[in-house]
């Protein structure tokens, strides 16, 4: 992977679905990836599924240009019906809420029509890159396995065809990849590994690089036991406790990064920003790191740790 930037490695397919458990920063990674690609001159479309306005604030220029779209199942199904010669049906069903009526007969169809709409955007040729902020929390696997489930329940008909098309898209590495996001902490890494297995086995989709978000960049403070504080000892208790704490958290981070590297070939990291709530400028700052070339492979592992291992090495 020497010579390619994180942006290049993350965008080997036209459609990138960003997924991961709640709280790991899926939306952040979606925004950073879209920012980096847009800054590199690509025509980027961002698709958001939860109805949350966060991305509009983080990508104001894209939002102003209608390049941040919020997809809902109801709207996607209505559009699908109108596009496929079901105009009269759509009208009749609209009275009772199309998605609710159809969804009652075929549970999971809400996920399928949303994926179908994403497929249509990917196919349109209008975009170099379509980034999807996947559904929240544990819904990602359900969302992605629905087409296969419905495919088993349905033979033929528009729904069956739609399921076939979506399954074809998910299976095609040149068209679609899933980028999983995690944090350098125990539970998120366990969940990452489980989610990756489920996607390989149950969705049959290609995994892009894994993004480890919220990396503490260090530097690691010295071991308080080895620092001679002389007469000051009583006055530096807080600093000593803080150093021990940071070192312990950084040790967890190293351990978890090692586990991610052991389980995945390609790993991209994002540094924790020193703010309480991210803004558009933080997203731009993080995006810049996606455009930089990584150091060659043999140096990269070392580079990840250089600031952290300063004392361990000495």
């Amino acid at each position: 992977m020497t010579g390619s930037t994180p942006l290049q490695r993350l965008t080997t397919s036209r459609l990138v679905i960003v997924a991961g458990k709640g709280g790991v920063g899926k939306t952040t990674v979606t925004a950073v990836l879209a920012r980096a690609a847009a800054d590199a001159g690509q025509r980027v479309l961002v698709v958001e599924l939860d109805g949350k306005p966060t991305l509009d604030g983080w990508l104001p220029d894209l939002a102003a240009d209608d390049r941040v779209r919020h997809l809902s199942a109801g709207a996607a199904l209505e559009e699908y019906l109108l596009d496929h010669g079901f105009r009269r049906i759509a009208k009749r069903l609209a009275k009772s809420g199309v998605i609710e009526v159809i969804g009652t007969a075929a549970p999971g169809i809400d996920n399928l029509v949303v994926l179908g709409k994403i497929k249509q955007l990917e196919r349109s040729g209008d975009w170099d890159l379509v980034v999807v902020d996947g559904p929240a929390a544990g819904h990602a696997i359900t969302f992605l396995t629905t087409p296969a489930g419905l495919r088993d329940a349905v033979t033929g008909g528009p729904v069956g065809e739609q399921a076939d098309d979506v399954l074809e898209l998910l299976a095609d590495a040149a068209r679609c990849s899933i980028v999983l996001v995690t944090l350098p902490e125990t539970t998120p890494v366990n969940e990452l590994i489980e989610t990756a297995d489920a996607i390989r086995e149950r969705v049959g989709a290609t995994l892009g690089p894994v993004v480890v978000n919220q990396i503490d960049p260090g530097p690691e403070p010295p071991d308080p036991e080895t620092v001679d504080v002389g007469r000051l000892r009583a006055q530096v208790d807080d600093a000593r406790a803080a150093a021990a704490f940071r070192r312990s958290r950084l040790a967890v981070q190293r351990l978890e990064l090692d586990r991610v590297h052991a389980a995945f070939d390609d790993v991209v990291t994002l540094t924790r920003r020193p703010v309480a709530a991210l803004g558009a400028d933080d997203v731009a700052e993080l995006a810049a790191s996606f455009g930089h070339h990584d150091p060659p492979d043999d140096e990269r592992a070392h580079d990840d740790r250089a600031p952290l291992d300063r004392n361990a090495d000495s």
Partner: protein
Amino acid sequence: MSGLHDLVGRSNVVVCCGSGGVGKTTGAAALGLDVARCGRRVVVVTIDPARRLADALGLPDGLTGEPQRVPVETGDGELWAMMLDAPAMFERVVRGHATDDEQAERIVTNRFYRNMATALSGTQEYMASEALHELHADDRFDLVVVDTPPSRNAIEFLEAPSVLTRFLDHKVFKLMMMPTRTGLKIFSAATQPLLNAIGRVVGSDVLGDAVAFFQAFAGMEAGFRQRADEVAELLRADDTTFVVVTSPRHDALVEAAWFGHELVERGFGVGAIVVNRLHPTFGDGTPADAHDKAATARDRDDLDLAAMWTNLGELRELAARERSEVDQLLATADTPVVEVPLLPDDVHDLESLDHLAQYLFPARRNESEPEGNG
């Protein structure tokens, strides 16, 4: 602060809720462990297959769909743990309400049912509420602690008991329930256009499966409706306590504040909002104090000491940012706020669960320290 301890001690049900990745499962386990040590028989139901938690609890084979006794010393109390298996639970519920085995079999082998059990939004929440009801009625347990699924919207859990009844009340269902002997053909002139329309979109087999499912369901609605009412009542009972868990992240706090408020508005009992994993402050000083000392040490060429002070300054900045977010967003919360610091290690053994429990229940920690003022 002793409020939460007493409240949980008196409760028969504790519901831990909040957005994903905030430590709900660990919090539920810590709470359960603590109550068990007070002499009660507790069962903790988790939603995610949290292997580390199973390891921490000394259950090397992992959690299963049946309650397992956790091998920890709890005096007269007992700690049990299980993981929700939503499809299995759904099947059990269907079998419980079915008039005979044949009816149950027709339902659980139906393709529409199988699709619904896995793909219908809200099914997991619905089954969590069923598990809650079942365990509450189980004589083996005094307290049920349930860790809710990480929902798109935490309110889904509150509405979960009515997922199926809402479904059953739907007019499409009513159409499909109309008596028929030969499938679609004899639906009345009034119902046929709608069903035909649906059939054209989803395909006739899908519709056929759905019709077969709803017809197989005939006679079970009353039982499901009654159960939904019972669960709704249980969630609102005086001895049910909600604990909203959040991280100090901006969006998680916004959601927790909103959810806590919403629960109170809707008449549910909220014991506390727990802010989990706050960075510790390391003393009373400010970030600037620490950075000043770093500068002084650097001037004296004492670089290691300077690095330690700089680190203290950075951690205090982090803590201060979190503090201001928490204060801002939870200032108007109508419920007590309990803060749990980020620990030096990730929780992975009983010792760290205990540590967490001490912060959740400071009253108990103080009881064991005679000088405590809690």
